Every structure is written in C-alpha cells, then in structure tokens.
C-alpha cells in the first residue's frame, strides 16, 4: 500500500462571527485508498492527540448521496475530479508532497458555522417556497395511471439527482443558486404532478432565491463542471422560461 505526505492549509474559523485564517498542517502518512474525508479524520485524530481542536467539516453518508459534505480544494468545489463529492474523492488522485488549500463554500447566503462547515439552510427556504407538489392524501392510486413520456421521466430523474450540496453556488463567480433551483423546478415541472403549481413554483422559488442573497447566472458553466450529479445547464434555461411565463400569465 502506497502512503505519502500532504501539506494542508486549512481555513480555521471558530464561529460565524470570528475572523478566520489558514493554518498549515502536515499529514505524514496518507494512504492512497483513503477518501479525502478519511484523510481529514486522520489529521483530526492527531490534532485531538495534541489537545487541539479538530477541523470541523460536514459529512453524513460518505457515499456521495446525501449532499452534506463539500468544501473547496485548491479552488475547486469538491476537488479536482468531475462528478464527485469530496467524500468519494480518493487520495490516489493526489501525490507526495502536494500542498492543498481547503476553504469553505464562500457566499453571503452560506455563512460559515465553523472551519469548513457552512449553513445551507438558505437552500431549505428556497425549497419551502415552492419545491414541492401539493397532494390530497387518500387511497393509493393504481400504478401507471398517470402517463409520463419516457424522455420526460428520464429528464425529471436526471434533475432529481441533485443532492443539494451547494457546490454550484460555491463555484459560481456570482454565487448563483441557479443550477440547484433549476434542478428542482425541472424535476417537478417535467412531471404531470408538478403542473398545477408550475407557475407559482417558478415565481416563488426564484424570488426566494434572490431574497436569500444568491446571485445571477452569467452562463459561465462553472456550476455544471463541478456538480457531483452532472446537473445540466439546461435546467437553468427551463427555470428562466418557467419564471418568465409565470410572470406573463400571472393574474394577481
């Protein structure tokens, strides 16, 4: 098993109000089989052993599906590998003696909680504004009673793959949440169940997105390039189209 040394410059910040700064750490024996988060676990064990505060970072599933993890590695959201969360990024993609800079997502809408951990509840409020379908519960409907075209079903599933990690916001030069919001709007808007609320959904989610302090989309494509779930820029066009249509048709 190959093991090597890494030099980490980690953003340390005690709390949202405190000033932060980079602190340099050496991790002497990194195994190429570790994930990036396991490598940080090793660093944290050493820090605890020395009586120092461990580096705080978010994580839960560690299998790339929950969307909790994420920070910048040398300026790339979730690190250099496309289509990967930081928990699924393995150390074999790094080399001996490499120096890395770890920073939290930086956006007004994502305030730092501690170190590499940010508060992403702004996403929850964007969802609460319209990222749902209202249903009256009752008897279970028979399977396949609602016809859905195969292509629409596939595209809705692709958009539904978004795990809400926030990498799109972090990587965007304008801190826009357009990819995230567009993914939700496309996911629901492509399905028959999403039609009744399609206009109000777009209006409310876009308005909430703006109120939370997310920026505008300039179509640079940076979000698409780092999204661990390969959400496509077309979802942003769809969000824009739905929003414009809703504003034109609104009767309030």
């Amino acid at each position, binding site marked *: 098993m190959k093991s090597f040394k890494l030099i980490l410059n980690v953003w340390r910040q005690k709390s949202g109000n405190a000033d932060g700064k980079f602190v340099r750490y050496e991790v002497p024996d990194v195994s190429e089989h570790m994930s990036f988060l396991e490598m940080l676990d090793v660093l944290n064990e050493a820090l605890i052993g020395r009586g120092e505060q461990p580096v705080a970072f978010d994580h839960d599933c560690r299998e790339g599906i929950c969307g909790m993890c994420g920070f910048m590695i040398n300026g790339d959201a979730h690190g250099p590998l496309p289509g990967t969360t930081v928990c699924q990024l393995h150390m074999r993609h790094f080399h001996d003696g490499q120096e890395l800079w770890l920073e939290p997502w930086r956006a007004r809408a994502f305030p730092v909680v501690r170190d590499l951990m940010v508060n992403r509840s702004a996403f929850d409020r964007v969802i609460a504004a319209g990222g749902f379908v209202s249903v009256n519960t009752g008897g279970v409907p028979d399977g396949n009673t609602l016809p859905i075209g195969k292509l629409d079903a596939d595209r809705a599933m692709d958009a539904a793959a978004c795990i809400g990690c926030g990498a799109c916001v972090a990587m965007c030069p*304008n801190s826009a949440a357009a990819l995230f919001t567009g993914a939700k709007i496309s996911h629901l808007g492509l399905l028959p169940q999403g039609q009744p609320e399609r206009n109000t959904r777009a209006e*409310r989610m876009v308005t909430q997105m703006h109120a939370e302090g997310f920026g505008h*989309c300039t179509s640079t494509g940076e979000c698409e390039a780092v999204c661990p779930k390969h959400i496509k820029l077309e979802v942003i066009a769809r969000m824009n189209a739905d929003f414009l249509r809703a504003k034109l048709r609104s009767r309030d």
Partner: protein
Amino acid sequence: MKSTMSVTSRRLASFYQTAVGKKAVMAVTGLILFLWLVLHVLGNLQIFLGRDQINRYSAFLHATPEALWPVRIILIVAIVLHINSAVLLYLQKVKNRPIGYTKKGNRGATVMSRTMMWSGFALLVFIILHLLHMTTGTIHKDFIAGDVFHNLTFAFHQPTVVALYVLAMALLAMHLYHGLYSFTQSLGVSNPRHTSRIKPLAAAFAIVMASLFALVPIAVLAGFVH
C-alpha cells in the same frame, strides 16, 4: 400551505427585482442592440459602392426623421436598461460574496464570459467617442456635415484612429461571443439538442459582425477605398 413570504410582499417582489428578471431585460435589450448593429454594418459597407452611394444613404436617413428618431429612442432606452441591469447585478454579485476565495480554480469558463462587464464598459466608452467622432463631429479633425464618405476616409487615414476602431471591434467580438449564447439561456429558449450548434453559431456571428465593421477602417487605411 405555509408560504415563506406574505402575499403582499410576493406581489411587490416584482419582475425586475429578481436577478432572472434583470437578465431577461438584459437579453432582450442586448438582442435589440445586436439587431441594430446588423443594420448599421449594412450601412457602413456601402462605402465600397462609392462616395455617392454612402452619402445618398446618409442623406436618406437624415431626410426621414420619422424613421431615424424612433430607432434612436429605442436604442437609447435599450442601452440604458442594458447598462442599468448590468450594473445592478454586478453590485449585487460583489455583495453576495463578502469574503473572496484565496484560491479559485476555473473549470472551463471562457475569458469572454468572465469579462462581460469590462468588455461592455469598453464598448460604452467607444460608443460615446464614436458618436462624438462620426455623428456630431466634435472630436473629428475635419468634419463636413453630410459628407460621410469624406468623414470616414479622412479619419481612417490616421493609423491610431484605425487601431482604436479595430480594438473596439475586437471587444465587440468578445462581448457578442458570449452574449449571443447567453441570451438563449436567459430567455429559456435553450434546448440541449441545439446547444452544440448555438455556441459555435454565436461565435461565428460575433466574429463575422466585428470583422465586417473592422473592414471599413482597414480598407481605407490600406488604400482600397477611393
């Protein structure tokens, strides 16, 4: 259903307040400016048909104020709205990331897409200078009202003037290179089946448009226009 915003504030949160609304305004006004550039370049190219033709065209425009002024007003409104949304979005963007990255990677965003604000501002400066130069004649060294052919050929025998015009057209190419793709996203007309064609098409339009504009000063300087 519990809403995160009150009904009144939702109604008040009008179209232009959102970034999506501002981008739509920017896309429509950018498109208007682009369509006007098509007309403008067709006018300019008449210089190759000789002194009489381009002067006759200019005289025709000035003799029909009922066509000239509506177009001018549309252009002024378009450019004011275009710049207004650009500046508001830019100020918002700066506010939205109070602490910048120490290291920031770039995963494929083009230089054109990252410099729209600056290519846009350079174009604004150019537009003002160009109006003072060729429309009012204020900064033209030998301006004769009504003699467009003379005004053009006189100005473009000066290499520094030609260099400035060509530079401005390079910036126009950059602005349109990204702008003509981005507007399809902003207005939501984008479809992945077409994206692979829209991008090269936008680039081609940008380069052809800027080259046709730049052709006039270059041709005059090179002595091809008599």
